[in-house]
């Protein structure tokens, strides 16, 4: 175990603007270990992609960063998980506040069954914003940021469920932006979308990256290569899930991975 750990830490790329950090993070669902000694630093104002075969622990790792795993009974976390250098699993941490700072976009667009407008103001209202003028501004601002404004500005009172899948996903991104997070976690945000909608979301991610820190889980290797600045490759061997095999700059991972297992996975020599 020592060996893997040291190798892991040594091979971490040097980053001077760490937003999220895990040190020796382990996650258990009951007895099942889903993350193993994961040590990783995620830079701010960048897109970090997590790739790896199904079941290797990508979503589990992502959910660590806003304590979504807390919602699953009998989970246990060990090790350090830090946001801006502060351990987010400490007792003093307010989870509601944490999830405001670390927002999440899911695989399937999940707009609430209400109007486009209400979807967006839902979060801000929860956090005590009620001034109509202010809310209007938030709605326009985040819809512009998520590249949806022009398509919906004349039908804000229409049900969000009437939007196309790609529009719904951009609305979900807008909804996350409305609570002014610092980090956006995305778990396969494009897997339900067509290629054009996918490229739109990717483009959107590139602009959002100026302001936010983005972590994305994706099964689409080309997508990881296109959008991300950093890439982490996770693996499972037999029933051992949750090992971080390699982490580095995207340009390096996709042209010259150091670990044979990364190489084999991204060139399709094993799957």
């Amino acid at each position, binding site marked *: 175990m020592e060996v893997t750990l040291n190798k892991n830490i040594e091979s971490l790329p040097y980053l001077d603007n760490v937003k999220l950090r895990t040190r020796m993070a382990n996650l258990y669902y009951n007895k099942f270990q889903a993350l193993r000694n994961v040590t990783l630093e995620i830079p701010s104002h960048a897109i970090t992609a997590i790739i790896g075969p199904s079941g290797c622990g990508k979503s589990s790792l992502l959910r660590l960063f806003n304590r979504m795993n807390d919602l699953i009974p009998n989970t246990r976390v060990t090790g350090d998980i830090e946001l801006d250098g502060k351990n987010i699993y400490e007792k003093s941490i307010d989870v509601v506040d944490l999830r405001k700072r670390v927002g999440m976009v899911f695989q399937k667009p999940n707009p609430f069954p209400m109007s486009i407008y209400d979807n967006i103001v839902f979060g801000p209202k929860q956090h005590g914003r009620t001034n109509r003028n202010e809310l209007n501004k938030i709605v326009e601002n985040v819809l512009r940021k998520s590249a949806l404004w022009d398509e919906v500005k004349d039908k804000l009172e229409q049900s969000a469920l009437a939007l196309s899948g790609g529009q719904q996903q951009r609305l979900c991104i807008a909804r996350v932006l409305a609570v002014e997070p610092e980090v956006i976690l995305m778990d396969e945000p494009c897997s339900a979308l067509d290629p054009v909608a996918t490229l739109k979301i990717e483009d959107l991610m590139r602009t959002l990256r100026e302001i936010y820190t983005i972590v994305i889980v994706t099964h689409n290797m080309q997508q990881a290569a296109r959008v991300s600045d950093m890439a982490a490759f996770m693996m499972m061997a037999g029933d051992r899930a949750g090992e971080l095999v390699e982490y580095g700059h995207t340009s390096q991972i996709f*042209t*010259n991975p150091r670990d044979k297992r990364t*190489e084999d996975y991204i060139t*399709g*020599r094993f799957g």
Partner: protein
Amino acid sequence: MEIRADFHKRLHNIKDDVLVLGSMSGKAILNSIDALRNRNLELAKQVIEGDHIINQKRFEIEEKCIQLIATQQPMASDLRMIVSVLNIGTELERIGDYALGISRVVIMIGDEPPLKPLIDIPRMAEKTIDMLRRSLDAFINQDVEGAREISAEDDSVDNLYDQIYRELLTFMIEDPKTITRATRLMWVAHNLERAADRVTNICERVVFVITGKMEEIGASKY
């Protein structure tokens, strides 16, 4: 489980094509030197006329690489392999051009009386061709050390070139009437020297495919 078997088979076939191109270029150099040695103008013409087949083979390889890039999104060592094949294809095609250059000189020389018995030029050609063959072996066998060694041997080709140059210079100084004939042999030697340099470029590519590093190995004197 190999899940991109078809893609990897196509990539493998392209490597075979590179070998074919390599042997075409090598053969062209050999023939051009044979033509020089035996004053075989017919053979020289054949090399000149055959050059476009070499060019075509190179374009065919390029076309296949572009197809793979566009349709298969190659990554990591596969990507490096394809990029290197594109480069190696260019180098091999240029080696074919040097054979063409030599053959043109052979035709210019025509049936002029020989200046001197040819010794170092054929030796230079043999060395170059030997390096070429081994560089392609290193390419197929992914042999970094082999590639580095071959590259280092370029010095011996450079030394032969020096020797030839000095010798021809002596001829020209002693008897200015030999200038035309000596200059022609200089061109031949120069083409061979360039061909050997191309082989070192191929070796650099082989190192790149395997290590992912662009390194200049054995920078040539010329």
